[in-house]
């Protein structure tokens, strides 16, 4: 479904170019749910954005369905296969477009027919119902907004969904709802997920396999079962697992980066 080989992503021009991802390689099989975990700034979201064509500066190979992609240009077929759900539902919905306007425009752009019926179906799919159809984002809660964003991503009936920390901006109580919704949708529509999160328990719950990232590099790829058992084969993964189990000073100290000197 998705092949990423030797992907390096950078921002800016030559003299002050910052490379955010170094030589990332991983494959996502059709129907699989693949997770990317790591601390903030480890480049996990950057990988998603490069795949989606939102970042022009990258090298290596990104192939979706065997189709190699180039630069920040993507064709219609790509947009019908791959869609993305963004981290912050407060920033990912146009403040002046109603739910209806967002979905109708998306469906029209994707060349869909029977737009009115599809909007109702989409809203039902994400558990919103038609009462929300003509609301504006400011009339919705964070969880409801994220549901709209998911509906928008599903409008084109994609097969690969890029999930960029879809729950990190939400209240804890709403997070579980959205995760369950995503799990259900994956089952119903046979979707493939590439999910980014800094929350190990979310990844352990949602994913089959995961890649652990540190400072722009993939440290280790392991099955989620191993994560659930708390077994990482590299020191960083072990630290990360230990850190997510609860705060312990002796765990936190070696994790700190850059390492503090003195004392």
């Amino acid at each position, binding site marked *: 479904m998705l092949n990423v080989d030797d992907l390096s992503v950078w921002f800016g021009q030559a003299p002050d170019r910052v490379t955010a991802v170094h030589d990332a390689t991983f494959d996502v099989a059709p129907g699989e749910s693949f997770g990317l975990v790591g601390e903030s700034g480890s480049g996990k979201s950057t990988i998603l*954005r490069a795949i*989606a*064509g*939102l970042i022009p500066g990258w090298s290596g190979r990104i192939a979706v369905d065997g189709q190699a992609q180039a630069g920040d240009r993507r064709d*219609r077929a790509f*947009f019908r296969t*791959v*869609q*993305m759900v*963004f*981290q*912050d539902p407060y*920033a*990912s*919905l*146009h*403040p*002046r477009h*109603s739910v*209806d306007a967002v979905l109708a*425009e*998306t469906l029209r*752009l*994707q060349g869909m027919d029977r737009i009115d019926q599809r909007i109702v179906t989409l809203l039902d799919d994400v558990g919103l119902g038609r*009462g*929300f159809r*003509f*609301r*504006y984002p*400011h*009339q919705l809660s964070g969880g409801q907004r994220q549901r709209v*964003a998911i509906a*928008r991503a599903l*409008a*084109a009936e994609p097969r690969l969904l890029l999930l960029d920390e879809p729950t990190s901006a939400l209240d804890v109580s709403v997070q579980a709802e959205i995760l369950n919704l995503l799990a259900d949708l994956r089952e119903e529509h046979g979707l493939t997920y590439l999910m980014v999160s800094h929350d190990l328990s979310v990844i352990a719950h949602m994913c089959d396999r995961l890649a652990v990232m540190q400072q722009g590099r993939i440290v280790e790829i392991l099955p989620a079962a191993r994560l659930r058992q708390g077994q990482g084969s590299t020191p960083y993964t072990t630290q990360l697992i230990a850190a997510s189990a609860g705060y312990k000073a002796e765990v936190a100290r070696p994790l700190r980066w850059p390492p503090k000197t003195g004392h």
Partner: protein
Amino acid sequence: MSAMTRPPESRRDWLLSDAPQTRRQARLGAIYQGWLTFRANRLAMVGLIVLVVLIGMAILAPWISPQNPYAQNLANRLQPPSAAHWLGTDALGRDILSRLIHGSRITLFIVGTVALIAPVIGLLIGTVAGFAGGWVDQVLMRVTDIFLAFPKLILALAFVAALGPSIGNAVLALALTAWPPYARLARAETLTIRNADFIAAARLQGAGRLRLLIRHIWPLCLSSLIVRVALDMAGIILSAAGLGFLGLGAQPPLPEWGAMISDGRGYILDFWWVAAMPGIAIFLVSMAFNLLGDGLRDVLDPKGDKS
């Protein structure tokens, strides 16, 4: 929807429903929300009322003005305000009230035309520059800088001098000198919007650049532009009056307010009403636009979340 029998709801509830049933209801509801916010601002309402009166005056000018604004009566010149001439007469014995009423048409024409031309040019140039970036941005912004480098009135004077003095040319000159601040504003807004996630999301649906610009970026720039225009209106009226005062705007005997002040200049110490009455009119309308702009800012500010 279906033929359900719902409990009767008032029109207000229907408008304020947070689960509108149709596109139309949602849109009307949003407008009504805005109206409620606007109405809560007393001063803005005062501004709106003054402007509504002004517009009514302009429309009804031939019927409500007590006398012909061009009729001269030298025997009656420079009369103070009285029952026959509520606001007095000017140096040629013309009724000042009638001239003010007819002059409101000219004021509205100036304001309306400049308000249509300048922000549109500014919006186009600013959003294109901000969205395209690179050399397009550089070129458009340097042109804007050149226009900004001249004092507005001086540049307008140069335009009018080149085009010939008339009210139409004065308006054109004002519009051509008024757009650069709008372009700057629109560009700044665009720069903050263009990297927003909702633009990225629209791109991921295959939205082209033109669609992103018109459907996604313009609506967000428009509100701050409208507020800015309303606040700038006072300045535009004053500039137009200034051009009229300098004899480069409306030509006699047109009852343009600025030109009327200019006519009264010679008698300002002995016959104060000749210059003061149009001055008060300009002041009232300018202030009304400022108050209106303030109220619109509350309603349209995209950051001021209503929820």
